[in-house]
C-alpha cells in the first residue's frame, strides 16, 4: 500500500464511529515524505496470548518520537480490562495483578485518548501481526468497525538487514539468520537491556531500536514509503 493519504480520506468517509473519523481525519503523510520529517509513534500491546480471536489486550503503551528524539513527555500507558477473565500464566509474565486488571477500564473507554495519540503519526511496532490483529479484533467486537493504518515494523526491518548480511552464500548454506526478538535486536546496536513485557517500556525500546536501525541501515532522507507496510 503506497497511497495511505488517499486511503485515509476514504476511510474517514466510510467510518461510523466519531473517534475513528477523527483518527482518519488527522490524515497520513505521503509515501515520499523523508523519515526525518515523519511524526512517529511507537506502540506496544501486552496480551493474554498470541491468538487475537481468543486472547485479549491487557495493556497499551505508546510514545511519540521523531528521527532525532523520543519524547518521553508525551509517553502514555493504559491498563485494559479484558473481555475474558485473566489466566494465571499471563499474569506472571506481565506482572499485572488481578486486582489491578479488575479495576481497569474497558478498552472502549480509553479508545479516544489512544486514537488521539496515534492520529497523524506513523505507527511503529515490533512484530506487526500482534498490534494490527489485536487492534482490529478489539474494535470489531466493540464498535463493529475495523481499523487500518500503515505500520513500520522493526522486526521486518531487522529481518531485511539480517538477510542482506547473510547474503546469497549464507542462505544457500542455511546459516542461521539470528534472533528477531526485541531484546536480541537491540543488543546488535548496543542498546541497553530493558525488562521485557511492559507495554510502555517495550514501546520505548521499539522506538530506540528504529532510531538505531535508521542510523545504521538507511540514508538520512529515506522516504517513509520504503519502510512502512
Amino acid at each position: 500500500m503506497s497511497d495511505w493519504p488517499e486511503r485515509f480520506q476514504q476511510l474517514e468517509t466510510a467510518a461510523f464511529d466519531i473517534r475513528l473519523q477523527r483518527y482518519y481525519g488527522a490524515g497520513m503523510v505521503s509515501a515520499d515524505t523523508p523519515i526525518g520529517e515523519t511524526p512517529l509513534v511507537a506502540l506496544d500491546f501486552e496480551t493474554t496470548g498470541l491468538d487475537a480471536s481468543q486472547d485479549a489486550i491487557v495493556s497499551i503503551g505508546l510514545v511519540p518520537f521523531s528521527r532525532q528524539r523520543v519524547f518521553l513527555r508525551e509517553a502514555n500507558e493504559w491498563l485494559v480490562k479484558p473481555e475474558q477473565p485473566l489466566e494465571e500464566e499471563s499474569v506472571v509474565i506481565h506482572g499485572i495483578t488481578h486486582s489491578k486488571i479488575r479495576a481497569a477500564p474497558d478498552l472502549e473507554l480509553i479508545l479516544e485518548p489512544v486514537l488521539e495519540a496515534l492520529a497523524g503519526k506513523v505507527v511503529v511496532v515490533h512484530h506487526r501481526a500482534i498490534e494490527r490483529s489485536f487492534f482490529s479484533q478489539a474494535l470489531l467486537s466493540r464498535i463493529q468497525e475495523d481499523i487500518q493504518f500503515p505500520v513500520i515494523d522493526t522486526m521486518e526491518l531487522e529481518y531485511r538487514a539480517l538477510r542482506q548480511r547473510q547474503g546469497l552464500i549464507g542462505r544457500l548454506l542455511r546459516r542461521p539468520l539470528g534472533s528477531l526478538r526485541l531484546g536480541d535486536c537491540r543488543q546488535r546496536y548496543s542498546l541497553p537491556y530493558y525488562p521485557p513485557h511492559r507495554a510502555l517500556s517495550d514501546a520505548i525500546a521499539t522506538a530506540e531500536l528504529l532510531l538505531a536501525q535508521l542510523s545504521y541501515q538507511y540514508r538520512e532522507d529515506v522516504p517513509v514509503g520504503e519502510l512502512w507496510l
Partner: protein
Amino acid sequence: MQAELQDIVYFYQRFPPFDDLPEEALAELAQATEISYYRSGQDILRYGDPIQDLYIIRSGAVETYRRNGELYNRLAEGDVFGQMGLMMNRRVRFPARTMEDSLLYCIPADLYANFCDRFEDFADFFEAEGSSLLRHTLSSQADNNDLTTVKINALIQREAITLERQASVTQAAKLMTDQQISSILVTDPDQPISSDPNDDDGQVVGILTDRDLRMRVLAEERPGSTPVGDVMSTDMVLIDDNAYVFEAMLTMLRHNLHHLPVVHRRRPIGVIAMSDIVQHESQSSLLLVRSIFAQQSLEELTQLAKQLPAVFVRMVKEDANSHMIGSAMAVIGRSFKQKLLEMAEAELGPPPLPYCFLALGSMARDEQLIVTDQDNAIILDDRYNPEEHGEYFEKLSHFVCDGLNACGYRYCDGDIMATNPEWRLTLSQWKERFGGWIEEPSPQALLHSSIFFDLDGVWGRTKWARDLQSFIAQQSRNNSRFLNYLARNALSRTPPLGFFKGFVMEQDGQHRPSINLKRRGTAPLSDVIRVHALAVGSRSQNSFERLEDVIRAKILPPEKGQDLSDALEYIAMVRIRYQAADIERGEEPDNNIEPELLSTFERRNLKEAFQVLDRAQAFLKFRYHSSTKGGIR
C-alpha cells in the same frame, strides 16, 4: 495522564548529581527527558553550534574535545556533558563525538537551569568541576584561543641582525646593504645581560634606520667613522619573546611598524614582520585598520566605519578575551582618529606648532567596546599663542570630532573633547592642571576629571603624552590626600548587590528590570584599579596591566589582585557577549542586560564578580582612609 517512567527514574537514581534528588523531582526529570541515539564515531555536538540540552549517557561512550581538537574528557554510562555550553551563552564549548553506539538522555536547558535554582547540591555538582567556576570558565576560554595563547617566539622566522655601538656608520651601511634590511639593532657589550654571562653581545640599546643614516649622518656631514652609538635612535619599540601574538599585533598597529624586534631579557633574538602575523591569523580587526588608512575621503571613512559592529561580533565569536577585544577596538578607534588628523592636516595645511592629540578614558585604557563616545584633548607646544594659532587648532578639532561622530563615536556628553578650548592646553598648562587636581584635590573636581587620568597620545608629539603620564605617576604616588579623594570617587558607584547581598535590579529606559554592567560593574572596577595603580606609581593605562603593577607592589592581600582581574574579565565578557547578541538581532547594543536573559550560571558568576567589587571597595575605604560620608554619592 502522565505515564509512570519508573525505569528511567531508576537509571537517574544510580548516578550523581541525580542520586540526591527527591523522588518527585526525578519523576519530573524523567518526564522531560528526550532520548537520542548516535552510532559509533558520530558527531553529537559541534563547536559553536547552539545547544539546548544537558546530555546524560544512558549507554555507550562519548569523547569531548577542546576546540583545538585535543581530547578533553572520555565519558561513559551515567556521565554528563554539555553543561559548559549551557553555562556560557548556550553555544557548544566542547565538541562531543561517540566512541561507541550511544543512547543519550537529553534534559532541556530550561529544566536544567530550573533544577540548579531549586537544588543547591545539583548546582554545586556542576560548579565543583573547577575550583572556581569563574576562573575555570575564563581559563577554558583562553585555552581555546590561538591569538591569546600562541606566544610570538613561535613566529620568529628572521634572525635579528645586530651591531655593536662602537661600530662605524660605514660598517652599518654595508651590513644593512648586504642583508637587505632598512634597520639594524644596536647592542652594547658593556651592558652584558646579567642572566647570561656567556653572552658577550650585550643588551639592545638602540636602533639605526635608513632614515637615521640620511638625517643624522649625511645631512649633518658626519664622517663614515662616526660610531653607530652616536647617531642611533634610542626611542624604539621592542617586544618580549614571552608576549602573545595579539600583543605583538597591537604593538605594531599602534606604532605603525612593519617589523618588530623581539628580545629575551633585552637580548635580541629575532624580528617579526606584520606579514608573519597576517599569515598566522587573518584577523578581521587588522584588515579593518589597514583599510582605514587606505580611505581617501571622509565619506569613504564613514562608510567603512559601518563594518565595525561586524568586526566586533566576529571577534566575540572567535572567542577573543576582553583585553583583546578592548585593545582591538581601541586600536581601530585610534586609527580613525589618526586618519582624520591626517586628512585635517591635508586640508588645513601643516600645523603652525607641534601638538599631540590625546585619547582619554576607555580608548586610552585599551578597553574600548562598541558602545562608546569620544573623549579627547590636545597638548599644544608651549609657544602656543591663541590669537596666532587658535583658529587652526579650533578648525582641526572640529574636523576630527565631527568626523569621529560621523563614524559612530558619539560626541561626549560632558564636552570632554578637543573642540572645547578648555581641553586644548599647552604641556605646561596641562602639568599645572594635573598638579592642581593632585595637590589640591576636591571631590567635585575629581569626579569629572578621573577620565583624564587615563590618557594616551594618538598623533603628533606622542612623547608629550608619556611625559604627562610620568608626571602624574610621580605626583600621585604615595600622595595620601589625593588618593583619599580619588578613592572616595571610586566608591560612588556600587555594584548591584544589597538586601543581604542578593541581586538588585534597576529599571532601564523602558522600565524593564535591568543591570547596567558598565556603570555598576566595569567602570567602578576600573576606578578601584586606577586608585591602586596611581598609589604605586604605575604608568600603565590598561586596567589589567595596572593590576599587574599593583600585584607586583604587593599592596593588596594575596589573591585579591587575581580576583579583581577575573571579575573585570567576567563582567566585561558578559557585557561584550550581550552587545554582540544585540547587534546580531539587529538591535542597538547598550550596556544594560535584562537578568531574565541570563542563564543561572551567568547570574551566579556575575554575583560572584560583583561581590569581588564590593569587597574591593571596602578594602579601598580601609586602605586610603576614605569613606563616602560627607563626600559625594
